[in-house]
């Protein structure tokens, strides 16, 4: 295999699928990384050397992520990798990363209960988004929940946490069903029938990948009104809403650290930069934003260490803060996860997420929290000033506050 001399560039591995069931979201994550690299290189690279991405497509097949991580390290001599969406894929990469002592950035929300010194986690853990979402739903829609999820670890664990919070709030889970990752129309019909029979106040969905689009569309086609009984999710994002279409998507709820409609100097700049490189920013997601800020944080750390040594990079990254499009984020030195913003948004009539509630300050990640406490005062929600987005306020806080 021929490659340019490693002295002239910094190489970083990228493992996001551009084919397969989770390709929609993973493509947006890959774009986030490529955008950050483009910005860094346009500004002269890191200490005079440009960052060169080496990217493979694992095709949404978990085992492929492990094999390609091995290939990135062994053949391409890469020691820093960013990638993975599903936990099953991360679990394949983890042993490779640890054995080779590489550094891995994981820009995706996940179910928690993991720590590896070789991983920097950039997505939300359940304590950062489940409690605010449950509070909001019980306050605005009702206390009878129906759970539907894809059949793997993240949905089951998210539902365990959610079930506990709902019960603390005096609510009930009236039904729970898991669909295969490649769910078809028949599987979804079963869910719709059950929803019709059980009449929940809200549906909590942890369906990921292509199933999401099918579920939302079928829910709409069956005559359900999302304004009355919405589907609430931690994963359904801008790219998926775009595919679902505004008619079927309007009224549904998502909790995430970032939405593309939030108004801040950093986000405006991020979206403009994204549009310049990829033509349109309509499919920008919170996972894309996480991939983007993690790549920038990596580059800043690299600028200080001037070396790709895993230990040096880790020590520099732990405790580092960054003014991300979502607001200030910080890598928690206690557990390698990230302090993140927490927001709840509803899809409006033209298919845009409008932030309804947000937490006042970033939440500390607590990946090993078995059962979050519903009454934890850290989860107090703040109604956003207005659901429409006016000009960014000219205050020193403008960078952190959506409109």
């Amino acid at each position, binding site marked *: 295999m021929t490659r340019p001399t490693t002295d002239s560039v910094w190489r970083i591995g990228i493992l996001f699928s551009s084919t397969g069931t989770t390709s929609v979201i993973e493509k947006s994550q890959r774009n986030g990384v490529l955008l950050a690299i483009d910005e860094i290189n346009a500004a002269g690279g890191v200490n005079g050397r440009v960052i060169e991405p080496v990217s493979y497509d694992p095709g949404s097949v978990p085992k492929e992520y492990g094999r390609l991580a091995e290939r990135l390290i062994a053949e391409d001599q890469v020691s820093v990798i960013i990638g993975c969406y599903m936990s099953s894929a991360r679990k394949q990469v983890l042993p490779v990363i640890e054995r080779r002592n590489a550094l891995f950035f994981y820009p995706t929300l996940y179910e928690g*209960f*993991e*720590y*590896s*010194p070789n991983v920097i986690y950039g997505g939300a853990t359940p304590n950062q988004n489940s409690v605010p979402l449950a509070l909001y739903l019980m306050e605005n829609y009702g206390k009878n929940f129906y759970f539907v999820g894809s059949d793997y670890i993240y949905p089951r664990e998210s539902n365990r946490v959610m079930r506990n919070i709902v019960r603390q709030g005096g609510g009930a889970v009236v039904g729970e069903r898991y669909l295969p990752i490649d769910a078809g129309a028949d599987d979804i019909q079963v869910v719709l029938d059950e929803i019709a029979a059980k009449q929940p106040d809200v549906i909590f969905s942890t369906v990921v990948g292509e199933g999401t689009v099918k579920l939302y569309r079928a829910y709409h086609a069956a005559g359900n009104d999302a304004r009355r009984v919405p589907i609430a999710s931690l994963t359904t994002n801008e790219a998926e809403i775009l595919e679902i279409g505004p008619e079927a998507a309007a009224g549904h709820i998502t909790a995430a650290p970032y939405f593309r409609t939030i108004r801040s100097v950093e986000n405006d700049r991020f979206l403009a930069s994204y549009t310049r490189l990829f033509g349109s920013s309509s499919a920008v997601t919170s996972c894309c934003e996480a991939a983007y800020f993690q790549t920038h944080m990596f580059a800043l750390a690299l600028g200080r260490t001037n070396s790709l040594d895993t230990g040096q990079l880790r020590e520099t990254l732990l405790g580092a803060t960054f003014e991300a499009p979502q607001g200030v984020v910080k890598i928690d030195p*206690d*557990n390698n996860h990230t302090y993140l913003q927490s927001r709840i948004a509803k899809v409006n009539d033209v298919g845009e997420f409008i932030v309804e509630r947000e937490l006042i300050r970033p939440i500390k990640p607590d990946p*090993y*929290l*078995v059962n979050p406490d519903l009454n934890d005062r850290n989860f107090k929600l703040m109604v956003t000033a207005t659901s429409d987005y006016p000009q960014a306020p000219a205050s020193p806080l403008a960078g952190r506050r959506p409109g």
Partner: protein
Amino acid sequence: MTDLINDLRSLNVLVLHRRDADCDDLVQQISRIGCNVETVWPLPETLPTNVDVVFVEIKESVPPGMQRLFQDGAMTRPTLIGIIGYENPSVLLGLLDLNVQTVLSKPLRAFGVMSSILMARRIWRQRREDLTNLEKLRLKLENIQIVTEAKFILMRHHGINESEAYKVIRTHAMSRRTSTREIANAIINADGLLNNFQLKK
């Protein structure tokens, strides 16, 4: 059993290990899990109070000081998790001597610490429940033996049947606000005394 998982964060954990990188990794992971954790080295004379779980490194031989720390019975002793760097028979013997509930092997990894604590807690709790039940059964068996013996004495002396004899014991116990066991014991003692008097006549 889910309360074992929910209660993890309320555990007070003690790590008896010299302060090195292994120890730091372990202590950090335990605090990530959310337990209260403390390190003591060298070995203390006595365990701090209110310790629920102790991690202790076991080498070729278990020093007497360590043996003393954990000599309390299973009902009062904290949950013990051994840390080992070797798997040779003398280390294994140490694990058995100290009666640990589970083992972590070196080099220590963050992954697995949580399940080890959980499994050790379950075994520890199961053992305590078993011992409590065993004690209850032993007492019950003893009661039955004593009451049976007293019943036979009454049957012999008064020519009554077994259920009548039991009724006598129970009535006395109720009127004196005591247990059937106490009355039965009194009957047995009295019978013994009377027999002795007869012998000496």
